[in-house]
């Protein structure tokens, strides 16, 4: 930016663009949140203007960010020719507005980094000279900025916005007015955002208006010649002093430093006179530049064409576009990895909440993997005991305030004054902060881990315990070998070092126990054939300490696959084996891994073939196929949870094994279901190896309970995921790891919330693998809003979709698939309709489909949910087991993985593979990884495509892809049936590149192993099964395509609108 600045000669052309007014406000702001202005200092500078600022300062800031996005639109106007012409009467709301609005979100973060508070301050002095001549007041305010200041106060500060709006008689002043106040707030608070907008917008202008000018353009369309004049000398004259290093940000500040408002304060007559004239149109403009996105759906008369080009439909091609508005408002919040709210604006009344038809809640992933350098700090309160609020039991967190010279602290959640224990006492400095703040991560970080004293234990911390329950009945798939090898290779990496316990039971029509006492050389096998009265043949030694009995365990793992190789017994006494495992494990708890290869057929808990009944589909009994058949399993699951046993179920059969029933074991114990249909060691070995290894070696929290607390008036009511509730709000999790997320919905207990902010605190009490009892605490604050528009603006599609999916899957357990899909659709329609009603009054919406920018992908994801394996079609569209396994898996997925599964990535890779460049370089170049819409139209017969849903890769070979290339990739048997071809690295560049690419993708997302499936265009039925049915934008098998879906939603939204 600094470099562009000198280019200002082009300025003369500026008159076309200049909304200098709004801009002027932004720079101010931009410094605002970043630097955290001290209220007092800030205020006194712009007293005149501050009167107008809305009182509701607390959420102004986020409004700002959102609204700022919209401001980009005017910025785009100058080169509007490039865009499709507006179809409606909204000159500044072209249908293509969507694309433009993309920028701000991603930009936020970068901006936040660009101007670290202090540096910018440091930089500013350099800038001041140029700025001063224009407006003196500006310089004062930045100087007074105080980093500690919370954002809300900024509201008072933005004088510019005030002055800007003031002259405009049309602009409503009341903060209640959603539209305008939002727009106004933008200016006030959105500094970082606003800042971000500019750099983004700039590129488009650079050709014609380089550098500094383009920023001006951004601000708006109403030129203010006077101002630009005032600026002219600056760029020219002051460029030399301007440091080359100055960031774009600075440049903006310089540019904006001449806010008319400020000028007016200073008494610049010229500016003041100009001002009223210029502001008025601008304010109107702002009113019109709405904060929704839209596209037109209106058929051209006389044609059947819907008038809607599927290309303009919003798609999450860059993956999860997470918006960090909340973390900007509340920088002390925990990362969104751990906690995501469906909307950051908590409704302030029940009536408002009832108009929010989307789920209101949160998705929590308490142990999400943190990137290097962002690990959760561990705090040891050994001397003081853990500091918690006496009344609401909230843990001490960054939002508590210390008073009374540091002797008391006020709970942020319930406002109770608590005593500070003597050992924890620290003096407060002049600004009321503890002087030891730097050494107290619990007061500066949203996520911390406390080491829990013995009060938090009901028994000594348990050692990590792994118990394997393996079905050995007539297994021919090679599963046993793979499992044994994998376990053996992981023995050194199991968690817990010398404390780890391990045990095995195998079963067919009898149960086999293994005595692995350390004094033995070979494990002793004991066979029990009495299935009705299961007992434990040995009191100990069925579960042994791994390090002590290592040789015996090794010997067992070496020998047992061969032992059962010739087994012809086809029965499976699963129920009795489960009981035996429970008896063995009930003392300690731990993790039970079940490898089930066939339908349980003997003893208690035997199941019958029930999934093949096609007649059941479409009737009221349909859902029964998806719920456990035998209450035995639920009871076992409950008992397992009670005894701190987590169950992971691995299913391998090609035939029906009733995973709906087996999966309940995982569901209520915090476990997970892995399903490998028609397992063949040759094909699935890598996948099973990787996933089993990850399952037993990833960091795990044992015997844990989780509770999420929130402030007064709000309560979490329902919970969704794989766990069992121990009391109304206590989630029992025998084992948790980074791949598990839990969703919950909240409701308002009081008709009206009086607080400005709601605090959420997730606390996970667990035993670490090292045997330490710990409490992981994530704290987040969210503003309370009074306006539905703000809730929409602060909505988080990822969290909403995550909750939606879980609700839909739960619905399939009580009703038909069709109804579950309908419920998803209905809620989306309701939400969009409500949003439409919100805006219909002020705007001529006509045939346009409008939606909040924050939810632009909601309809598409909704469609994806309906087409996901768990919910798609009917009998013929997915095997019952597959469906249930998908359902259980999705109930536990973290947000990002869920989104990826719902809308997988489709990329073209053939050109990339030909490049000679090294992989490392390319990985930085994100451009080539832009995803393609998931439609058959994206597939070029000459191309090679990679489809990645996080669980598998599908490589699609176009029919016209050159045979040489295929041969290079697949070797000699490139023409063979692809189901028999496996991908391996060959000695040529392309193949190496491909394997490198796949491995890179696998590493970036290692919670599951993505097995590659090769599919040739036109190869039936593989192509259909692996790829075509998953191209969710296409109408497949009677389901809607994306376009039809949108049309359908639109029609329904307009009904009774």
């Amino acid at each position: 930016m600094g470099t562009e600045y000198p280019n200002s000669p082009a300025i003369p052309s500026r008159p076309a663009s200049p909304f200098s007014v709004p801009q002027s406000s932004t720079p101010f702001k931009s410094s605002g949140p970043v630097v955290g202005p001290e209220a007092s200092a800030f205020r006194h500078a712009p007293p005149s203007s501050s009167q107008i600022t809305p009182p509701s300062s607390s959420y102004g800031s986020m409004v700002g960010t959102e609204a700022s996005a919209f401001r980009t639109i005017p910025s785009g106007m100058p080169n509007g020719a490039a865009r499709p012409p507006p179809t409606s009467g909204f000159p500044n709301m072209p249908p293509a507005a969507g694309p433009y609005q993309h920028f701000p979100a991603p930009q936020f973060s970068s901006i936040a980094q660009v101007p670290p508070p202090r540096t910018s301050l440091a930089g500013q002095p350099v800038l001041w000279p140029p700025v001063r001549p224009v407006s003196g007041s500006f310089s004062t305010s930045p100087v007074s900025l105080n980093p500690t200041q919370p954002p809300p106060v900024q509201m008072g500060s933005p004088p510019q916005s005030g002055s800007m709006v003031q002259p405009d008689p049309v602009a409503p002043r009341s903060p209640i007015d959603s539209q305008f106040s939002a727009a106004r707030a933008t200016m006030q608070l959105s500094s970082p955002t606003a800042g971000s907008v500019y750099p983004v917008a700039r590129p488009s202008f650079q050709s014609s208006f380089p550098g500094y000018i383009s920023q001006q353009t951004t601000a708006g369309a109403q030129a203010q010649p006077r101002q630009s004049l005032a600026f002219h000398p600056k760029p020219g004259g002051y460029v030399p002093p301007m440091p080359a290093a100055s960031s774009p940000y600075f440049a903006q500040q310089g540019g904006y430093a001449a806010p008319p408002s400020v000028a007016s304060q200073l008494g610049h007559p010229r500016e003041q006179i100009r001002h009223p004239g210029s502001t008025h149109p601008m304010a109107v403009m702002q009113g019109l530049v709405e904060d929704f996105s839209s596209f037109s759906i209106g058929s051209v008369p006389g044609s059947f064409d819907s008038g809607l080009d599927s290309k303009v439909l919003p798609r999450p091609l860059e993956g999860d576009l997470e918006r960090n508005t909340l973390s900007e408002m509340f920088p002390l919040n925990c990362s969104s990895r751990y906690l995501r709210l469906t909307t950051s604006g908590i409704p302030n009344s029940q009536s408002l909440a009832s108009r929010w038809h989307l789920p209101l809640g949160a998705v929590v992933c308490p142990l999400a993997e943190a990137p290097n350098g962002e690990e959760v700090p561990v705090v040891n309160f050994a001397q003081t005991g853990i500091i918690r609020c006496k009344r609401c039991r909230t843990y001490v967190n960054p939002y508590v305030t210390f008073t009374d010279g540091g002797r008391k602290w006020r709970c942020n959640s319930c406002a109770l004054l608590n005593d500070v224990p003597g050992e924890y006492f620290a003096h407060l400095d002049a600004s009321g902060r503890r002087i030891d703040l730097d050494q107290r991560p619990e007061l500066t970080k949203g996520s911390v881990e406390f080491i829990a004293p013995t009060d938090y234990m009901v028994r000594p911390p348990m050692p990590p315990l792994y118990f394997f329950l393996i079905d050995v009945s007539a297994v021919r798939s090679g599963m046993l070998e793979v499992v044994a090898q994998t376990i053996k290779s992981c023995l050194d990496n199991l968690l817990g070092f010398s404390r780890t316990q391990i045990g095995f039971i195998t079963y067919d029509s009898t149960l086999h126990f293994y005595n692995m006492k350390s004094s033995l050389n070979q494990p002793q096998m004991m066979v029990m054939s009495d299935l009705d009265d299961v007992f434990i043949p040995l009191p100990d030694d069925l579960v042994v300490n791994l390090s002590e009995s290592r040789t015996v365990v090794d010997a067992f793992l070496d020998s047992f696959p061969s032992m059962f190789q010739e087994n012809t017994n086809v029965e499976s006494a699963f129920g009795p084996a489960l009981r035996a495992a429970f008896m063995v494990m009930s003392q300690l708890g731990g993790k039970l891994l079940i490898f089930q290869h066939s339908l349980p057929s003997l003893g208690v808990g035997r199941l019958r073939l029930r999934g093949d009944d096609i007649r059941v589909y479409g009737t009221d009994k349909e859902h029964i196929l998806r719920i456990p058949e035998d209450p035995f399993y639920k009871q076992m699951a409950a008992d397992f949870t009670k005894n701190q046993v987590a169950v992971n179920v691995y299913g391998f059969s090609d035939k029906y094994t009733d995973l709906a029933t087996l999966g309940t074991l995982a569901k209520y114990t915090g476990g997970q279901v892995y399903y490998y249909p028609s397992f063949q060691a040759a094909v699935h070995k890598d996948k099973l190896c990787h996933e089993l290894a990850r399952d037993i070696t990833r960091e795990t929290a044992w015997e844990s309970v989780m509770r999420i607390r929130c402030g007064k008036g709000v309560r979490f009511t329902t919970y969704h995921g794989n766990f069992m509730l121990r009391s109304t709000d206590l989630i029992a999790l025998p084992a948790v790891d980074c791949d598990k997320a839990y969703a919950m919905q909240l409701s308002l207990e009081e008709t009206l919330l009086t607080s400005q902010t709601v605090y959420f605190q997730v606390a996970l009490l667990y035993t670490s693998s090292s045997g330490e009892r710990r409490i992981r605490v994530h704290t987040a604050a969210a503003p309370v809003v009074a306006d539905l528009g703000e809730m929409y603006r602060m909505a988080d599609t990822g969290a909403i979709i995550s909750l939606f999916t879980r609700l839909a899957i739960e619905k399939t357990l009580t009703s038909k698939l069709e109804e579950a899909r309908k419920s998803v659709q209905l809620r989306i329609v309701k939400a969009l309709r409500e949003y439409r009603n919100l805006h219909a009054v002020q705007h001529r919406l006509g045939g346009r489909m409008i939606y909040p920018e924050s939810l632009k992908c909601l309809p598409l994801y909704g469609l994806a949910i309906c087409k996901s394996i768990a919910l798609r079609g009917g009998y013929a569209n997915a095997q019952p087991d597959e469906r249930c396994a998908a359902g259980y898996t999705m109930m536990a997925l973290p947000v990002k993985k869920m989104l990826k599964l719902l809308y997988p990535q489709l990329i073209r890779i053939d050109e990339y593979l030909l490049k000679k460049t090294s992989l490392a370089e390319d990985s930085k170049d994100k451009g080539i990884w832009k995803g393609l819409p998931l439609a058959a139209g994206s597939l070029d017969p000459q191309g090679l495509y990679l489809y990645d849903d996080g669980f598998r890769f599908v490589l699609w070979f176009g029919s016209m892809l050159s045979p040489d290339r295929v041969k290079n990739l697949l070797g000699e048997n490139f023409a063979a049936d692809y189901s028999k071809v496996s991908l391996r690295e060959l000695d040529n560049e392309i193949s190496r590149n491909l394997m490198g690419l796949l491995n890179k993708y696998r590493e970036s997302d290692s919670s599951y192993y993505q097995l590659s499936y090769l599919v040739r265009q036109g190869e039936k039925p593989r192509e259909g099964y692996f790829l075509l049915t998953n191209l969710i934008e296409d109408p497949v098998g009677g389901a809607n395509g994306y376009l039809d879906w949108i049309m359908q939603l639109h029609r329904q939204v307009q009904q009774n609108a």
Partner: protein
Amino acid sequence: MGDLLSWLFSFFLLVAVLGTILYQLMCLADLEYDYVNPYDSASRINRGVLPEFALQGALCFLHLVTGHWLMFLICLPYLYYNIKVYIDRCHLVDVTEIFNQLPWEKKIRLYKLGYLVMLLAFSIVWMVWSIVDDE
């Protein structure tokens, strides 16, 4: 005299059904306020369910054989509901889902309670009537 006895007997049966329902409601309330864990609560409630059904069935049967047709008819819907949930095998509360079912289970039992109180009132009226009639 026989009529009075049968009324008395049905009255005590009714009170017994009422007692089981109240007991279950109490367990649910305890669970809601976190006084007991779901395991104990579920097993206590489930222990009360079958006796409740049996007693109610006996009550119906008694009304039938003693010729209290109207009372029998009033009891029938309750009996039908019980038989239906029993056949659907969802008469027991599910310990794993008990918190999700809590509002529904409570509602059902409150309805039953109201219904039984009404029956009780009828019973008493009829009993008094039969006493008066006797004399």
